[in-house]
């Protein structure tokens, strides 16, 4: 099989072993650091693109690098390098020390050597040989793009696959010494439909972590039907009329509203910046009593799951909001140091070239007691958001996100499809307006871009009703 040639046969860190890691950490501490952390990474990635009935791109990539972070008091210096030799790592430590201007400082942190090795990668070393071959991926992508060709209104068909395999070693002066392997696979389908002056698009992305066989189980027929139907439903849709209105947000990727509107504002990086309205609201009501929200590190197979975070801590399940009451913030090492909120195993980074920061993992609103129909029936004039696009939140807590597939609600029933809607609002205003939660919680994979790069996350929720929100349209 060609795949076995494209895959690495082994994952190696060269001479980057325990003795060297300890030597480097001792070196940093001797020079006056309070804390030294080394993150070493080795990656082996592949992506495949199918367009119409052909494979048009196969792109393998691989690499190695290290990120070294030094803390002194509440500030940190971070240096990244592709040079994993002793000389290269020592130079990076020196540079970080020099940046913090602490060479020969008499006050030194304590380092008693690395603890017993915690190897989270033991059961995962076989993954690289279990993931599908490029040939297998190509064949399935071509079958899926063929499945999208359901009528002559579909003018473009794309299927894409991406596999990221990352092996890491994390060692730090508090004794942390761990290794892990992370595997993420995503597959996406996209179409553009066109008829005279009308155009629409449809897209869906599916993803998993730590499940090498997942791609083989992917139901491409169901996925293709879903994407096709979405594009057809939206092809002749009118633009939505703008205004304030109640909305029902569908389950799965509808969870992006919580991710953007509230989740980011519960990260300690936002407390550090003073950009969250929830900073002093612990144990206070910040949302409707129907809202319970959770951020957890391990949900089997979910895209944001971690065995260990990028600072070497096992991730905990964090109940962020319980019945509308704020219970916890999402914290990393720097967040704990600078804000006092205990680490939650949420220190995450895209790769070695970013310092870890407090980031969401699998974040969702817990299920409630209502059916989807209960929510829709309760609205006489509003919007049903079946599929959401991307979104963002700004420094004042104002968020926005796009509705890819929406339908008007009239007298408690779904009616015409509408396009061009954007939901905008402010976190502290919208959270109390989530008045009903459905009983159909589902999760969806996504990518989140923030201070420490793009990381894999899960968003999720049951169907929810927002009593009133600004819908941008025409």
């Amino acid at each position, binding site marked *: 099989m060609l795949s076995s040639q494209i895959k690495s046969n082994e994952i190696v860190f060269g001479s980057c072993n325990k003795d060297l890691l300890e030597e480097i950490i001792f070196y940093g501490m001797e020079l006056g650091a309070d804390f030294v952390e080394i993150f070493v990474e080795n990656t082996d990635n592949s992506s495949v693109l199918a367009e119409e009935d052909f494979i*048009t791109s196969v792109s393998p990539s691989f*690499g190695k690098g290290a990120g070294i972070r030094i803390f002194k008091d509440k500030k940190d210096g971070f240096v990244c390098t592709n040079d994993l030799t002793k000389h290269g790592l020592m130079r990076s430590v020196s540079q970080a020390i020099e940046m913090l201007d602490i060479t020969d400082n008499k006050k030194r942190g304590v380092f008693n050597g690395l603890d017993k090795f915690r190897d989270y990668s033991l059961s995962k070393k076989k993954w690289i040989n279990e993931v599908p071959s490029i040939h297998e991926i190509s064949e399935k992508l071509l079958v899926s793009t063929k499945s999208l060709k359901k009528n002559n209104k579909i003018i473009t068909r794309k299927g894409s696959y991406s596999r990221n395999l990352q092996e890491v070693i994390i060692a730090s002066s508090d004794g942390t010494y761990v290794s892990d392997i992370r595997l993420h696979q995503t597959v996406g389908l996209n179409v553009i439909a066109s008829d005279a002056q009308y155009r629409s698009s449809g897209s869906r992305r599916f993803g998993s972590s730590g499940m090498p066989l997942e791609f083989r189980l992917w139901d491409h027929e169901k996925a293709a039907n879903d994407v096709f139907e979405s594009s057809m439903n939206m092809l002749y849709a009118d633009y939505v009329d*703008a205004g*304030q209105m109640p909305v029902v947000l569908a389950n799965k990727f509808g969870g992006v509203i919580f991710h953007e509107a509230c989740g980011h504002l519960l990260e300690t990086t936002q407390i550090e910046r003073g950009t969250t309205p929830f900073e002093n609201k612990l144990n206070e009501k910040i949302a409707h009593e129907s809202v319970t929200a959770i951020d957890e590190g391990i949900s089997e197979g979910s895209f944001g799951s971690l065995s260990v975070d990028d600072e070497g801590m096992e991730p905990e399940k964090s109940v962020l909001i319980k019945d509308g009451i704020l219970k916890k913030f999402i914290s990393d090492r720097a967040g704990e140091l600078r804000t006092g909120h205990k680490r939650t195993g949420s220190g995450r980074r895209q790769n070695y070239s970013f310092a870890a920061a407090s980031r969401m993992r699998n974040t969702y609103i817990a299920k409630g007691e209502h059916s989807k129909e209960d929510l829709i029936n309760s609205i006489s004039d509003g919007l049903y958001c079946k599929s959401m696009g*991307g979104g963002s939140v700004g*420094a004042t807590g104002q968020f926005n996100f796009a509705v890819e597939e929406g339908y008007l609600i009239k007298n408690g029933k779904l009616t015409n499809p509408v396009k061009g809607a954007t939901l905008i609002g402010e976190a502290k205003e919208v959270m109390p307006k989530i008045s009903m939660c459905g009983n159909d919680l589902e999760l969806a994979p996504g990518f989140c871009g923030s201070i420490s790069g793009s990381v894999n996350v899960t968003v999720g929720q049951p169907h929810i009703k927002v009593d009133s929100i600004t819908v*941008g*349209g025409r």
Partner: protein
Amino acid sequence: MNSKEITTQISEAADSLNLRKWDYGASFSNDYSVQVDNGEAKQLKASQKQILTIRVWNESNLVGITTTSDISESGIKKALNQANIASDFGNKNERTEFSPLAKDPIEVKDSKKRNPVGIKKLLTLLREAEVKLLESHESIKSVPYNGLSESFYERVYANSDGAFRSYTKSQAALYLYARAEEKNKKPRSSGSVKLGYGVDDIDIESCIKDASNKTISHLNYKSIKTDKYLICFSPESFLTIINAFSSMFNARSILDGVSLSNKNSIGEKLSTEALNIYDDGLHEKNISSSPFDGEGTPTKRLCLINKGRLENFIHSESTARIFKTIPTGHAGLGSKVSVSPDWIVVEKSEENSDLKTSLDHSTYEGEFVYIEELNAIHAGVRASQGSFSLPFDGWLYKNGKKISIESATVAGDIKYLLKNILNIESNQKVTTSGISPHIWVDELSITGDA
């Protein structure tokens, strides 16, 4: 290893693997950056990074590619091997070749390469900037997003046909994003970004002033009524919208069926005859300019819209061959080569008699919405459909007075927007992403809270 040595090493490794045709692109960078928080250093960062992208052609002339950060001898051999294997999956329907212009002379600007000033000076300058910004107005309580950085990098392109290009340069960037708070009012936030070849070239004072003025000017905000309004786009916001819909000019997007244009669109009237748009990667004001693209093709000034009509598309080697023209210097380097604009320049053409020149944002006393900055482009633009729905920072002008808009979105269609340009003001403004004057457009939908 330097770039000449890497080229030699790739050549020797390729020979040993019996690979006759190859090319590569590489970048080597050193970056230094600082962030501060109330006078204290927050995070100080340095990085040394290298990225190497190798393409090889197999005996059937199909291309394969691999990217790596490992430029050791073994890393290079592994990359060549992987690219060779990947070439079995090369696209048989759209062949890739070397750019025919990869050995043409390139126009290298005075690169104005600067020496590093070092982390300590970066920190001192940023601390001072933060203090000045905090002191500029009592309502400015913090500068939550800030950073000062300097970068030094080399870009390389070489191929087995003897082409070799190398380009080194330096660049510095400062961003300051202030947050203002007043009692019983929502916080307001705005910022400014400045670029230079080095830190000493950056106008720090004007960055502070811009960030402060923009932030405090929005303190007295009001909701805007949902309706259609006469719109004036700032230079920054008009460039944002043109860049968001640049697939109109992009031959790759046309071939992929995701552009509003098609192969026969050249000559199509898109807007008033008063509009010219160029892509000018080598413009003297473009700090980030590069004299060649990912395939080694020289960068150049190219007219995209001439007197309102589509004049040219931007091309890679393969799209140019399909369109029976020459590459334009806009390619990346990939298994499927991407194409993107460099530096958009918008200007008023000589055919401007149909413009309503009374529309001047500094003097017009009728009602209009001034769009200062568009946000969340990744979420609110449907480039393949032409539609947009975007949050913005801006103003409602009425009877000679201006009121900051609390929160709103502007929605529309790019073709409608271009066809309904009413005026192109005379003064062009240089921004970090291109050059444009203020542009007036008739009747776009604004959604507000009122």
